């Protein structure tokens, strides 16, 4: 038993959580005694808040995320080739700190899909409540809580991390690297996620219920809420730290670990997409961390950053919260979309058997979105009461950001034009994405137009828009990517019939659910309400029914994934006849990815050119004299 408690793992992690809470209790007690507060040893709120910060850190130490670093710090002999925590030999290896990027990728994906289902169930509960006017199933605290936790989980624990998960698995393989640049940091980034998700879910147990201010947590509402609010404030810090560390890892990996011959313009677009996303994450995510630290200090220690009524000069600035928050949260929309663009580029090119049309423009438009993405945040604040002139430049930049996005859409259309289209599940989701995302993009341009936005902001039109972007956009690409790389990740094939059923059910019920929301939004139904006027009852009933069917369609996906993973037919190394490097190794790939370092000799999408290859598995010295596929060294036609 003692041995188990001393070795890294779940027993030690459990013990450390208890230690963390004890530490928080003692720390709070000592500080409150020193400050001569009443009841220094019995303030539940203070102990909970400090525990929320301390217990997760203790948990991560207990689980073993820091063991190697402590070992190094302690001055013991280091083990440069220590692969003891690398790779998975049984299912149990997925539940410990693992440094293999493929294991971490699958850990990320499974964790995120779990939160997809939790968040989806919350949406089902909300739709049940909204099926009829009046209050039936939940009260308004619970409803606001569901709205908030649904959004927070799906943004911070589904869309953002699952893209990191897919990239974690695929990206090092794609660039011919044996692993990520910092495998231990990678493991730590992953383990912060379940921590963040657990904190957010635990908020339902807090006195006063879960956080209920929406995922935007606008101050001063959020600084005056019951304790549950802080589960969001602190949970987001862990999710944010996780994505910053992962993004740094991706950047270093992409910049320093590409295989010989892989110039930036020979990188697959998924790599470009994750490069751009990581830039966004590294620059923007500290801002949401800041905004939530402000809230934490306001709520827990009375700093009055956002209190415009109390304090020396009554000078708390409510609008500042929104500026800082959206300076992250608008780029976050691109953090949730650019990796999907990458996935769609891979799928469309391979499935249409054609090179990506305008590869360089595709890469440049990603960078353009990164830059423009930082200049549009205040379009979320057109009715916030900020200085009115800010609206005009923000309207123009918001409209202009549709240009690089349009370039991508048109280039994808040109990519499938005259190809030989394999219309299987990943392709269906990629094509479905083009349709729904175009809708979301168009409503985005409409929302950029200030006078129209003044009418529809904070209505169901917004709900429709964000779901067309994040569900019809991100989630469709996620499904496309999961089906596309399923054979590579698991070594098994999924069931194509069930996959197609899943697509059609998702596509149809998605549109029936979210399409009508545009209309009721313009008609005047506000969002985030548990109750609404009688005139919208028929629409809401139809939306609720469609949403339940949409919910059921994900069960087809889950069944397909679980059963195919266990019992599906063995997958070949390269079932899609793709050129990118991840398909040139076995399915699933060997533990260190490549037996010989690949040499990249051409572009990643040279379909239709006889004999073209992207990479070859020879030493660079051998490869150089005979550059196979040299016609393809430049990806664009000059």
């Amino acid at each position, binding site marked *: 038993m003692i041995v188990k408690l001393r070795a890294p793992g779940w027993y030690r992690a459990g013990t450390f959580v208890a230690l963390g809470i004890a530490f928080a209790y003692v720390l709070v007690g000592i500080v409150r005694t020193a400050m001569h507060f009443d009841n220094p040893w019995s303030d539940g709120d203070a102990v909970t808040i400090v525990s929320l910060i301390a217990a997760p850190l203790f948990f991560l130490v207990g689980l073993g995320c820091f063991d190697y670093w402590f070992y190094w710090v302690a001055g013991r002999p280091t083990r440069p080739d220590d692969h003891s925590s690398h790779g998975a030999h049984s299912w149990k290896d997925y539940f410990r700190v693992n440094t293999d990027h493929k294991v971490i990728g699958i850990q990320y994906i499974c964790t995120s899909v779990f939160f997809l289902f939790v968040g989806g169930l919350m949406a089902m509960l909300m739709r049940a409540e909204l099926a009829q006017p009046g209050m039936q199933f939940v009260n308004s605290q619970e409803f*606001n809580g569901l*709205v908030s936790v649904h959004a927070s989980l799906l943004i911070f624990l589904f869309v953002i991390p699952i893209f990191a998960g897919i990239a974690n698995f695929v990206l090092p393989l794609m660039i011919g690297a044996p692993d990520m640049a910092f495998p231990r940091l990678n493991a730590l980034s992953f383990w912060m996620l379940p921590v963040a998700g657990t904190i957010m879910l635990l908020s339902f147990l807090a006195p006063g219920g879960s956080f209920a201010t929406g995922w935007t947590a606008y101050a001063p509402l959020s600084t005056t809420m019951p304790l549950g609010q802080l589960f969001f404030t602190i949970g987001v810090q862990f999710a944010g730290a996780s994505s910053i560390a992962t993004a740094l890892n991706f950047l270093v990996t992409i910049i320093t670990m590409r295989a010989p011959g892989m110039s930036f313009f020979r990188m697959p677009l998924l790599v470009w997409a994750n490069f751009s996303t990581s830039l966004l994450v590294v620059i923007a995510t500290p801002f949401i961390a800041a905004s939530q630290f402000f809230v934490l200090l306001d709520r827990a220690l009375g700093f009055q950053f956002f209190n415009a009524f109390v304090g020396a000069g009554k000078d708390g600035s409510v609008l500042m919260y929104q500026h800082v928050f959206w300076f992250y949260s608008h780029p976050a929309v691109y953090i949730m979309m650019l990796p999907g663009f990458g996935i769609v580029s891979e799928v469309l090119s391979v499935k249409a058997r054609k090179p990506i049309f305008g590869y360089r423009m595709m890469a440049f438009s990603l960078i353009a979105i990164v830059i423009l993405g930082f200049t549009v945040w205040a379009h979320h604040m057109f009715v916030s009461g900020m200085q009115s002139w800010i609206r005009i430049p923000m309207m123009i930049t918001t409209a202009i950001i549709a240009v690089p996005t349009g370039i991508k859409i048109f280039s994808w259309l040109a990519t499938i034009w005259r190809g030989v289209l394999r219309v299987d599940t990943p392709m269906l989701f990629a094509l479905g994405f*083009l349709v729904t995302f175009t809708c979301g993009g168009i409503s985005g341009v409409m929302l950029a137009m200030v006078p129209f936005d003044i*009418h529809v902001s904070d209505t169901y039109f917004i709900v429709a828009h964000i779901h067309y972007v994040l569900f019809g956009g991100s989630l469709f690409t996620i499904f496309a990517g999961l089906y596309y790389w399923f054979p590579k990740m698991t070594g098994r094939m999924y069931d194509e019939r069930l996959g197609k059923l899943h697509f059609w059910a998702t596509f149809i019920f998605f549109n029936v659910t979210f399409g009508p929301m545009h209309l009721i939004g313009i008609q005047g139904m506000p969002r985030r309400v548990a109750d609404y006027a009688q005139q919208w009852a028929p629409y809401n009933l139809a939306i609720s029914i469609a949403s339940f069917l949409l919910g059921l369609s994900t069960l087809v996906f889950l069944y397909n994934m679980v059963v195919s993973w266990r019992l599906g037919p063995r997958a070949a190394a390269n079932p899609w006849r793709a050129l990118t490097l991840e398909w040139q190794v076995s399915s699933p790939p060997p533990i260190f990815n490549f037996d010989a370092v690949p040499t990249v000799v051409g572009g990643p999408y040279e379909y239709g050119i006889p004999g073209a290859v992207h990479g070859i598995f020879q030493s660079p010295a051998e490869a150089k004299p005979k550059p196979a596929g040299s016609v393809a060294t430049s990806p664009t036609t000059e």
Partner: protein
Amino acid sequence: MQMVAIGAIASAIGIALSYWIHWFPVDAAKQDKPIDTLYHVLMIVSIPIFVLVTTVILYSVWAFRMRPGQESEDGPPIHGNTRLEVVWTAIPAILLVSLCSYAYGVLTDIEQTHKDELVVKVHAVQFAWSFSYPQAGGARVSSDQLYLPVNRPVRFDIDTQDVIHDFWVPAFRVKIDTVPGIVTHLRVTPTRLGSYPIVCAELCGLGHSVMRSTAHVLTAAAYARWLAREQAPVSAGGAGGGGAAPTQAQLIALGRQTFTGDSGCGACHTLADAGTSGTTGPDLRAIRGQSQAEIRQDIVDPNARIAPGYQANIMPPSFGQTLTAQQLDGLVAYLASVSK
């Protein structure tokens, strides 16, 4: 060619449909038409783009899908076409900049200021609206519903006593947040008689979905009559304050008016006598048998005693400041009278 024809027909049908659908609530202000027109223009521009994307996808799937025997075939290795790429960069850019210029025109149009604006102050509190009309000589008329004369430009000066709310009249098409610490403004010229819902559009807490009021657009004459009627009790009350104390019956009547009206007690509390059915706060049957002092404490310091099953910090602690002394006396008298 076929595709272009199909696309053109589909776009025409789409645009016709977008006109046929009844998108907006009723037009009740001068601001409505420009915004509605902007929306329809946006639809006319958007639908062909959407149809273009969809048609290309459907046609590709139909014409280029893999037939049996093509399993190992690839498409032609086309890497790009500079002219095409310039076209689909430039045309959207021009289109978007023109739309922005148009939208800017609409914006200046709807936010135009007028010299003879009627100024109405809007106050938000969790979870009720109140409106006051500054009068000559510093007096004010207050109301819990909004009354406006038709065809007269109005400027709303909007503030809040607690968190961010959002003042929105869908029939007027315009909204603005209420921001703690600053006064925000909104301009509207009502053009149609009738009553329209006022909605809080920014999540403001438990009672957000019941934070509603009504805007009444009256003829100039009817508005003047309403104003005169509202001014009357205020001046009577002012005189009473200087002279004899109000009778118990007057106090109770004032309390009932306060409960159902301005301060918005009924939005959160159920009270049979007042005909309110809010569920955010405790049902006021619970105050039966309490002293007037206890009731008064519950109003001015709501966190002092929390009813079982409810949380602290939900009821605004500011009623002690926002209600006049007389309103507070009235409220206490009224609640004591109905809970005997």
